[in-house]
């Protein structure tokens, strides 16, 4: 039985890939990029999950240090790397939006079929 976190992540990646293959609008392509990003983040986060016998693990944050010492915690490294990746996703979004605005100005359309012809 595949765990539902993986299934949700695959669904997100799949929606993004489908939009990449079959959609023609540049804005929709950027949205597809972000949806694939979210799916990959969910996949990476769920790799760090930990399942001890019977007990639920907590987030890797010791709020009240002495009371939580020794309790099982989920892996913190995937969370830290996904934190880096989210900011880079925002960077990609900003740069892609800038390129899209310039492409709309140059071609007068957002359809990628009409972007092939070089003009001006």
């Amino acid at each position, binding site marked *: 039985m595949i765990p539902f976190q993986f299934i949700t992540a695959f669904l997100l990646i799949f929606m993004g890939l489908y939009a990449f293959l079959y959609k023609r609008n540049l804005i929709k392509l950027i949205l597809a990029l972000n949806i694939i990003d979210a799916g990959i983040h969910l996949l990476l986060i769920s790799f760090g999950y930990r399942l001890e016998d019977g007990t639920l693990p907590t987030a890797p944050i010791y709020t009240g240090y002495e009371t939580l010492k020794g309790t099982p915690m989920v892996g913190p490294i995937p969370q830290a790397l996904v934190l880096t990746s989210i900011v880079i996703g925002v960077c990609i979004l900003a*740069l892609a939006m800038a390129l899209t605005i310039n492409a709309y100005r140059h071609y007068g359309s957002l359809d990628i079929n009409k972007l092939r012809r070089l003009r001006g």
Partner: protein
Amino acid sequence: MKRTLGALSLLFILGVLLIVASPNYGLKFGLGGKDWQAHRYTDQYYIEHGVEEVGGTNIVTDIVFDYRGYDTIGEATVLFTAIAGAIALLRPWRRDENE
């Protein structure tokens, strides 16, 4: 033809992902006990020693700013470069203003 090829490649990627994620001969979800100590000893080390070595009780912040600080430097550089690139693409150029 193109649509068929796209659908076939989507199905292929789905199959690969399902093989990777199946718990019998792929990645195991939710390690615990001995498996956790064997495969995720780095996470366990950070969880156990992070508070003494760095001082913050939020282990993720400890990793981001101390253990993996070089990642954060590169990421800040990427943020700066991307936003500078976006502004440089969007701002009016002097050549255009003269038109």
